[in-house]
């Protein structure tokens, strides 16, 4: 989802509302950090060094076995989940955007919710295609540079960290400056939880004081492997220009069509709930409602029942003048609630109003209410037919930029198909609110805080961002001629179980327990162990499939690892561990024999 603007009054919406968001990333970075240029240069060097550290961490993490990865991701997810409310309140307080209750929901969904959704997927173990004679080996991206927005601040931090952990990537988070305090705190909390659970040191880091030149330097740094940019158009464009692979997410301006066949009561409830969600600062919140004329009055009555206030033309005029004083979105309205905005605009509305519905005639560039408003103000146009409604929806997307999302409430499959064909977005939410529909919380789309806008939207991905986008697979492909046999990889390790803090503390090599030459006998019984550095042979054994990898891990490394814990076991030296491991393996072998 997109970032929102700086909140700086007069931030320029440009073509789509989210151009303002970029201004936010840029202007916001500059504002309030009147640092001397020397300090800015120093900060850039420092941030580059964070990438260098992340590069080390990524190299170590890429060897981890699945059980360790799940333990680490779970630790981060539960830590995040436990703090969902605290960060929701902090984010609202710091940014002035949104609704704490709604941010709690997102923070929970993006922590344990995301973990549970993907914990069953295996991004770690090799995959065997025996018929095709191909072994596929996961290669994590490496160092992920994550830009997170001010509108979805902490939930985006949680989301990107957890999908990075599940795929064994290191991540450097650069939060939007408007939300930097809550995000920095959240990243550090998860970093420490992850390291406590055995993650390599430096796997999760944060740029605590981001500036525009600093972020540009990080995006262009050769150590950055992939940029996951959520923000306005310019930030995303900068990511794509950087020379590094980027999974950028562009702006949205969401039309919702209600045709004559829709369940109007349900549609009204869903639209108002979705539009009011988090005071409409998401890029998935509906922007313009297009309703078929024949059911318009009835739908609006239903929406009023849901505490939407339908404005008349004079009130709409006042609201337009307030929201777009000189044709540009008024920053102070972003993420504020409907009643507050109505009062500032000098419009009388009933108490408990959740959404302001502002009617206008035609979706054209000179009508500001047709653009993204980043507030619970819903534009309204009437269409004579469903077909005309579809064209109006196209026009809404034309203003905001293609590739994002749209919603339709209808029971006519022809209309739904036609809508899907004609409206140039990459996800259409049907009979569901768009904010939870297109983000996969109330549909079977991948639940995500980052919606790819695809080729049309200038993004490398057209789907909802999910863990698999952060992994490449190396294909080990055999000669397909039947005379060349495929091999049996059972019992051949591809991953390792970390045997303590990574990296180990640099104790002097003559102290008891310091790493020493492995005695030849210790490697016996481990096909991958010979000649490997200490710890390698404790790795998960067979990794032919998810299940095999997990169980092999359990056999090859009995509970001592879990019991001692990879962290807090620094007192147990590597040498002692080696001896323990040898003893346990011997014992197990005798059990098997006996």
């Amino acid at each position: 989802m997109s970032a929102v603007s700086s909140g700086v009054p007069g931030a320029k919406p440009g073509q789509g509302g989210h151009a303002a968001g970029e201004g936010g990333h840029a202007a916001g970075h500059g504002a309030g950090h009147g640092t001397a240029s020397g300090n800015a240069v120093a900060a850039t060097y420092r941030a580059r060094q964070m990438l260098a550290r992340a590069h080390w961490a990524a190299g170590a993490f890429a060897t981890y076995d699945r059980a360790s990865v799940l333990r680490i991701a779970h630790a981060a997810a539960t830590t995040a989940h436990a703090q969902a409310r605290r960060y929701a309140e902090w984010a609202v307080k710091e940014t002035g955007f949104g609704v704490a209750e709604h941010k709690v929901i997102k923070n929970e969904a993006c922590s344990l919710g995301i973990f549970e959704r993907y914990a069953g997927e295996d991004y770690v173990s090799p995959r065997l295609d025996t018929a095709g004679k191909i072994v596929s080996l996961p290669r994590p991206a490496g160092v992920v540079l994550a830009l997170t927005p001010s509108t979805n601040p902490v939930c985006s931090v949680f989301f990107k960290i957890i999908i990075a952990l599940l795929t064994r990537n290191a991540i450097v988070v650069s939060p939007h400056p408007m939300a930097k305090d809550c995000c920095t705190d959240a990243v550090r909390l998860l970093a420490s939880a992850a390291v406590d659970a055995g993650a390599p040191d430096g796997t999760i880091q944060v740029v605590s004081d981001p500036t525009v030149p600093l972020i540009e330097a990080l995006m262009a740094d050769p150590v950055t492997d992939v940029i996951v940019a959520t923000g306005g158009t310019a930030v995303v464009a900068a990511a794509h220009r950087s020379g590094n692979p980027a999974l950028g997410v562009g702006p949205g301006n969401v039309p919702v069509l209600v045709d004559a066949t829709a369940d109007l009561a349900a549609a009204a409830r869903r639209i108002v709930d979705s539009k009011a969600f988090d005071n409409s600062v998401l890029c998935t919140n509906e922007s313009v409602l297009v309703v078929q004329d024949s059911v318009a009055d009835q739908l609006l009555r239903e929406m009023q029942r849901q505490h939407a206030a339908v404005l008349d033309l004079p009130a709409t005029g006042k609201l337009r003048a307030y929201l777009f004083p000189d044709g540009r979105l008024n920053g102070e309205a972003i993420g504020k609630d409907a009643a507050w905005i109505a009062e500032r605009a000098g419009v009388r509305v009933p108490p408990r109003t959740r959404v302001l519905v502002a009617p206008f005639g035609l979706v054209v560039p000179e009508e500001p209410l047709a653009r993204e408003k980043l507030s619970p103000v819903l534009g309204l146009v009437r269409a004579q037919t469903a077909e005309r409604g579809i064209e109006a929806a196209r026009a809404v997307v034309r203003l905001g930029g293609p590739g994002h999302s749209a919603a339709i409430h209808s029971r006519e499959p022809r209309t739904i198909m036609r809508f899907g064909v004609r409206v140039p977005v990459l996800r259409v939410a049907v009979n569901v609110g768009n904010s939870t529909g297109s983000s996969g919380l109330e549909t079977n789309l991948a639940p995500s805080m980052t919606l790819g806008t695809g080729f049309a939207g200038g993004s490398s991905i057209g789907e909802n961002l999910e863990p698999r986008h952060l992994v490449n697979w190396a294909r080990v492909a055999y000669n397909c001629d039947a005379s060349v046999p495929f091999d049996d990889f059972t019992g051949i390790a591809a991953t390792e179980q970390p045997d303590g803090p990574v990296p180990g503390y640099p104790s002097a090599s003559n102290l008891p327990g310091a790493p020493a030459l492995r005695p030849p006998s210790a490697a016996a019984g481990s096909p991958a162990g010979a000649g490997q550095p200490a710890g390698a042979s404790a790795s998960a054994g067979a990794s032919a499939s998810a299940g095999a990898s997990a169980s092999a891990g359990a056999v090859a490394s009995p509970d001592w690892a879990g019991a001692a814990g990879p962290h807090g076991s620094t007192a147990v030296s590597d040498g002692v561990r080696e001896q323990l491991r040898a003893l346990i393996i011997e014992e197990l072998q005798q059990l098997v024999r006996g």
Partner: protein
Amino acid sequence: MHDYDVFTVGSKAEVLEKSRQFWNPGKTDFWAESGVDLVIDRRESYFIWDMSGIRLIDVHLNGGTYNLGHRNPELVEAITTGMRSFDIGNHHFPSSARAALAQALISSAPANLTKVVYGSGGGEAIDIGLKTARHTTQRRKIVSIVRAYHGHTGLAVAAGDDRFSTLFLADRPEEFVHVPFNDLPAMQAALAGSDVAAVIMETIPATYGFPLPGPGYLEAVKAECERRGSLYIADEVQTGLMRTGEMWAITKHGIEPDILVTGKGLSGGMYPIAAVLVSEKCAEWLTEDGFAHMSSFGGAELGCVAALKTLEICSRPETRSMVHYISDRIGRGLRAIQSRYPDWFTGIRQNGVVMGLEFDHPEGAKYVMRHLYRNGVWAIFSTLDPRVLQYKPGLLMTPELCEELLDRTEAGIAEASAQARRGPAGSRR
């Protein structure tokens, strides 16, 4: 033609010839005979280039002088900017740069150290430390270890191995007592008379090939110093500034030295500076007679700028993390190489990125040095124990560079092994 702006050089041969004629024939010839015909031209990151264009990975780093790499861009920038405001400065007066660095050093060090005295290099700083100890205790004797190396100035060279002092008639055995390293009874005997001003000790003796202090040895020496009223001087010139994975190696032993000496890396390899950190008790002379030690270049303000930036980089959590990764990666890699040449490559002494590699030949490290050089790695043998190669990776190396270094190292060690096994080579000195 090599054009260095203020001078030009026609060829490498010309440099060698002029070096023999005008500079130092002994050194020039020594390297030629050792098979290390190096004249450093370009330098950048952890690379140096011979004038012939050959690139070498530098794991000599001049004892940690280039911890942060050659011409580290952050340092270059800091010093370039500093030159807009500073020169060497006037050493008689208080100065903003010297005060800032002193504060930064004190906050980086064990809590008992409270004041800083500046020198222009490590030797001078050691002399300051020894003079301070003598003043504080009003005793004259200094105890150091056999084969110690603390520099070449008057007191420092006397505290070191005879190799460098007798030539200049600078040895003074009656005042400078040498005891074997890791021999606690010998140390106790040397201190027994309660007439020793200080024990001076490199936390890991570099020029002796980084023999590691046995478990508890330094702690016992410090305790004995306290018992006998002697001071403990930690020479951290080579072991300080994160090389062992902590800012000062002595803190890994839980020791609060009375005096701590730093140099080399403190300069960032860009502008010479050294410093002595002293306890409040040892700082007394700075109040009694602030002019008692003077040094025109000691605490040069541009050096302070370099040192402040160096200290800031070294104290970053990112640096600490990377040193631990590098130490782990190189350590594992070396042990793997050792397992393939166990009879030749007989030992690894390691504490962080301070490493001494032992070979099964009285001058094994000279062979290895030569073959590493041929394989694109520059590492130097230990002058006072040529079996041992000093192997000192930088603090900010990338994983890729570590792997390249290990590949080259294995090739060099293998070739050296083959040559040494063919019998004493003609190139032995």
